[in-house]
Structure formats: structure tokens, C-alpha cells
């Protein structure tokens, strides 16, 4: 394999931009996924069918269509209806929305995992429903699901190169652009690959440690 250290030097500044964009998409996308997923999970426990039913429909639909199709839809189709978003905003919303349907399932399992006795104790103390959720159920549910949520952040990281297809210059986008300009693909691709490992592997170690701590 051809390897040219000076090519690498040329790529690094661009790569730096790419890393920032990847992290930005990841952090913002994860925040959306965490928040929206919780909204879905709570809505699916609503006593009202008119709330539950549409939420189930939307989340099933989003979970069962490819992220790439959703990104294209937001980027190319929504503007026809007057909603134009930047490539990065599209990527953040697409990632966040797509993964919110997975985090919703995680939250649901976490909420279901809180023993019925906790609800009963809250009732016996006359705690209002909203307070029971906020002070008793969610804190316990969230603690249980933190590791699972973390796993989805790592999955989001690995899906983030899809944003390249709508023109977001995240790490891989930078590498491809650099490669098509200089015809030097080896160095950028290897760097990007290593970067993914360097972010994802420590993150998963951290999660495993967290999981062990929370299990205690």
C-alpha cells in the first residue's frame, strides 16, 4: 500500500474539521434522540388512545424505514413543502429522530422494569401522578437504561457517515472530498477508520464500567 506522510499532513486540518462536525452531529443528534425518545415512551403510556395510537404509528414507521431514506426525505422532499434545512441540521434531526424510536423502546423497558411496588408505595403516600413520575419512576428507570442509551450513541456514531450523502462534511465526507481532489485515498481513509475506533472503543469501555457501577 502506498503511504505518504506528507499527504497525511495535508489531510489533517480538514480531518480536524470533520471530527468537529461528526461530534457536533453526534452530540446534538443524541440529545434529540434522548429527549424525543422519552416523549414517545411517555406518550405510549398515555391513557388516551388518540395519543398512543399516532405515536405508535410514527415510531414504528420511522424505526422500520432506513435512516438514509429519512435523510433524503428531510433534505430533498421537505423543501417542496417549504421547509428547507441545512445539511448539518438535516443530519442532526434525521439521526435524532431515527434513534429516538430506539431510545423510546429502551425507556419503555426501563419504565416497565420499575417494580409495581414503587407505584403502589407512591399511591399509598398520595403522591400525585406527575410527582410519582418525576421523583420515583423516572429516576429509577433512567438509571437502568443509561448503559443501553450509551450503546445507541455508539451506534449513532457509526451511522454518522451517512450524513455525507447529503453533503455534510463529517470525517468520512472530508476524506472522500480530499481523495477525489488529490487521488490519495489511503491515508485519509485509514485516519478516519482509526478515529472511529479511538472514539468508539473508549466510549464502550466507559459504558461497560458505568454498567457495572449501576448494577451494584
Amino acid at each position, binding site marked *: 500500500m502506498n503511504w505518504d506522510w506528507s499527504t497525511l499532513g495535508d489531510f489533517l486540518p480538514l480531518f480536524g474539521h470533520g471530527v468537529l462536525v461528526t461530534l457536533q452531529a453526534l452530540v446534538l443528534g443524541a440529545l434529540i434522540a434522548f429527549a424525543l425518545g422519552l416523549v414517545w415512551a411517555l406518550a405510549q403510556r398515555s391513557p388516551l388512545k388518540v395519543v398512543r395510537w399516532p405515536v405508535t404509528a410514527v415510531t414504528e414507521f420511522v424505526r422500520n424505514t432506513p435512516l438514509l431514506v429519512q435523510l433524503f426525505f428531510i433534505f430533498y422532499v421537505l423543501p417542496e413543502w417549504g421547509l428547507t434545512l441545512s445539511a448539518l441540521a438535516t443530519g442532526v434531526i434525521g439521526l435524532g429522530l431515527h434513534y429516538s424510536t430506539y431510545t423510546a423502546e429502551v425507556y419503555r423497558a426501563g419504565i416497565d422494569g420499575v417494580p409495581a411496588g414503587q407505584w403502589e408505595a407512591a*399511591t*399509598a403516600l398520595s403522591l400525585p401522578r406527575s410527582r410519582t413520575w418525576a421523583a420515583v419512576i423516572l*429516576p429509577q428507570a433512567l438509571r437502568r437504561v443509561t448503559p443501553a442509551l450509551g450503546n445507541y450513541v455508539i451506534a449513532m456514531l457509526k451511522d454518522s457517515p451517512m450524513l455525507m450523502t447529503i453533503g455534510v462534511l463529517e470525517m468520512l465526507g472530508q476524506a472522500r472530498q480530499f481523495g477525489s481532489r488529490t487521488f490519495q485515498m489511503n491515508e485519509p481513509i485509514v485516519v478516519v477508520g482509526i478515529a472511529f475506533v479511538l472514539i468508539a472503543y473508549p466510549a464502550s469501555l466507559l459504558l461497560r464500567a458505568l454498567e457495572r457501577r449501576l448494577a451494584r
Partner: protein
Amino acid sequence: MPADAEPSIPKTAATTSTVDSPAGGPGGPGSRELIRLEQVTKRFGDHTVLDRLDFSVDTGKHVTLIGPSGSGKTTILRLLMTLTKPDEGTITVDGERLFPAPEQQCREVRKKIGMVFQQFNLFPNMTVLRNITEAPVTVLGLSRDEAEDRARELLDLVGLADKCDVRPTQLSGGQQQRVAIARALAMRPQVLLLDEVTSALDPELVAGVLDLLRDIARSTDITMLCVTHEMNFARDISDQVLMFDSGRVIESGPPEKLFGDPDHERTREFLSAVL
């Protein structure tokens, strides 16, 4: 309909028992009916757990429910705590309907009732102190300081004054159950429901919790409705013991009578099995 203005409910030997006070029963001087179940039926699917049950408990009395497992004792406490709803009948607490009643009214009536569970059900995400102050602050509107003062007094009463800041999971079962008792008392309920509160405890921890409850029974005027398999404890604290079988009260009376000279063969069998 105010409970104390009511004539005594129709009695059938098998289903009715009224906890008579020494002063002469409901409406008599110095006694007031606090809890009344009338013709309460509860089914789970095809299985009728409580069958047109009638019974009442007077203010300040300590009533114990005994009977074989599966006879519906827990179900009665859960109905009173509104953790489950009857299929038929009426439940009245302190003159106010608990069932059937609009949710708003249930909420008010529920505040008069406290419950301690077999499995403690403390909130593991809160410190011991927070477990006790949470409801007084959010439900009764006490200030945090007031609630904490009250909580510390109660922790002192249950012998855990030094455990304010630990998490429930760091406590033994017996200690957790004492915290649960303190938590229930912090709401100053009129009635305390106790569902086999020592049956999940290691044997050496049972006595401490029972002694605490004896203490509370002796030193407060709280009404107690208690499900237990601890017959000595039942004998000590009860004004009245109700023997349950298959969702019906088959016999009731003061503990001396029920434990000493029961009328029913079924009661005798049960007592010889547990004693």
C-alpha cells in the same frame, strides 16, 4: 350518609362482623365507625376473591385479619388503599365514600390511609430522610424544614435516628421496614394498613419490627388494620380478630375468644397449623 347515623348493617352469620367497641358498637358513645365495607365483591376473572363482604372498623381500634394464604386478606387492604377497585359494593372511610367515588374524592380520602407493605417498597433513589419527607412536602404542603423535623422524630421513634442520609438499600430488611413505617406515619394517617409486614424479614429481625408496632399501637390513637401470621403479636395488639376463609369472615371476636376458644372448626384447624 354519615356513618355514625346509620343503623347497624344487616347481619348474616358468615359475612358480617362489626368491630364492637366496649362502649357498645357503632354509634355508641366514644366510638365512631372509620372504615365500612358493604357487600364488597372482588373478582379476578372467574375467581371471586371477596364475596359480598361486610365489615367495619371503629376509630382507634386495632383489627387483625388472619386466615389461610389466598383467602383475600391482602385484597381487602389493597381495596382500602385504592390499589385495586371492587367490582361491587361500597367502601366508606371516615364518612366519605372511597368507592364508588370520583377520582378527586378518592384522592382526598386516600390521605387518611397509610400502608406498610410486605416488601417495604422504599424508594431506592432517595435517602431515608427523603423517603419520609417526600409526601409530607409534596402532598401536605409542609415546608422542607417542618417535614425534616417530623421525619427525624419518627426516625428516632423507630430507632434509626442515625440513618437519615443513607440509601434504603444499605439497610437491613428490618431497618427498611422501620423506615417504611416511619414514612407511612409521616403522613399522619387515621388508619394504618399493615400487610404481613414481617414476613419478608429474616427471623432475627422480626421481633424488633413487631415490638415497634406494639409500641405504636400502645402509644398512639391510630386505627390499625393488620394482616399477619404472627399470632402472638395479633393477640397482643388486637381489639378484634377476623378469621378469613375464601373471601368471607367466618369468625370474629376479641383475641382471647378467637385464639382461646374458637367457634369454628376451620378456625381451629388454621390456628393449629400456624401456632
